[in-house]
């Protein structure tokens, strides 16, 4: 097995899968996307610069996720979500219930964002990438990243606050 390829796989697999999962919210689809991304890396392994592998993989994964969403015809609906990956419904204090509800709502709305907003929110807020890393992956300027991130967060807030399951009381501690 090609050693550099294996190194890349171990290094980036988790990041790619997380991105695909939060975008698609179906584990099997996310797995397929990641698998396909690494297959493509294998096919192009002699053409991709070693220092660019991470960014290359991320762009391929982003395109594959977009294709998957397009094939679905609509955003991931509640019934398509892997419910076994969501927090179990157990009797809990009210604040835990509120937190769980908000968490599920935010995850759903992240998946409902369009690109590039969804990508930037996942990379920055969930995966903790720096502005520069995001700029390198997406091929845009730092200022562009910041502008898009703030727009993305505003859009996310609009989606959450207009969601049928949202209630202001969910913000109460």
């Amino acid at each position, binding site marked *: 097995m090609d050693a550099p390829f294996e190194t890349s796989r171990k290094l980036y697999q988790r990041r790619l899968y997380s991105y695909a*999962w939060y975008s698609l919210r179906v584990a099997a689809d996310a797995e397929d996307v990641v698998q396909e991304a690494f297959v493509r890396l294998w096919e192009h392994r002699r053409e991709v610069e070693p220092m660019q592998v991470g960014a290359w993989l991320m762009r391929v994964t982003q395109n594959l996720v977009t294709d998957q969403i397009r094939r679905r015809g609509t955003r991931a609906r509640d019934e398509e979500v892997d419910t076994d990956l969501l927090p179990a419904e157990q009797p809990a204090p009210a604040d835990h219930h509120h937190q769980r509800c908000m968490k599920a709502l935010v995850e759903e709305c992240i998946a409902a964002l369009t690109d590039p907003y969804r990508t930037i929110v996942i990379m920055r807020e969930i995966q903790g990438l720096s502005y520069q890393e995001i700029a390198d992956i997406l091929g845009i300027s730092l200022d562009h990243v910041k502008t898009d991130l703030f727009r993305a967060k505003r859009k996310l807030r609009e989606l959450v*606050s207009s969601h049928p399951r949202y209630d202001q009381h969910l913000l109460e501690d």
Partner: protein
Amino acid sequence: MSEAEHKYDSACGQFLDRLDAWLAGEVPGEAGIALQHHHDNCAQCRVETRLARAIDGITRALPEHDLPTLTRQPPVQAAHRQTSPLGFQVYLARLLDTWRQPLVYAPALVLASLLALLLVQTGPAPVPQTVTVDGVEYNQEEILRAAADLELALRYLDKYGTIPARLVHAELQPHTEPVPNTEAPAI
């Protein structure tokens, strides 16, 4: 009340436009002070700010996920299988998975050895026009062509993970008619 329903005046509009940048500390100086002032004096904008902070807290606490299954075939094998759908291509692709399968290597070595024997001339003896392998007779041209095809197939498979159709169906065909002997000794 959603942001869309929020009573929207120019001050609130400006506040909401810059809320996320302000929370990120990207609005310094007097502009930041002005936003703080509006926040302190607008109940609805305070609600929006609370929602923004709650969403930030939730997203930043979301974990990265690992691939849940280990049963999927490794990407390298998946790449080879994806490009070798059916029939002889599948057979040959499987044989060449690790590039060291003796079942493919051996015929190439045998043919290469035969070629070497044919090419080495130690004396006035003429180069044989035909070679018999396992009771089947082949002429030089056929052996050379088959060896070249096999080498090409191996290179193609290495590079692209598949074999061109022309080479898949290429076989070593024994001749059915005598090859004209252009060097027939004079009678």
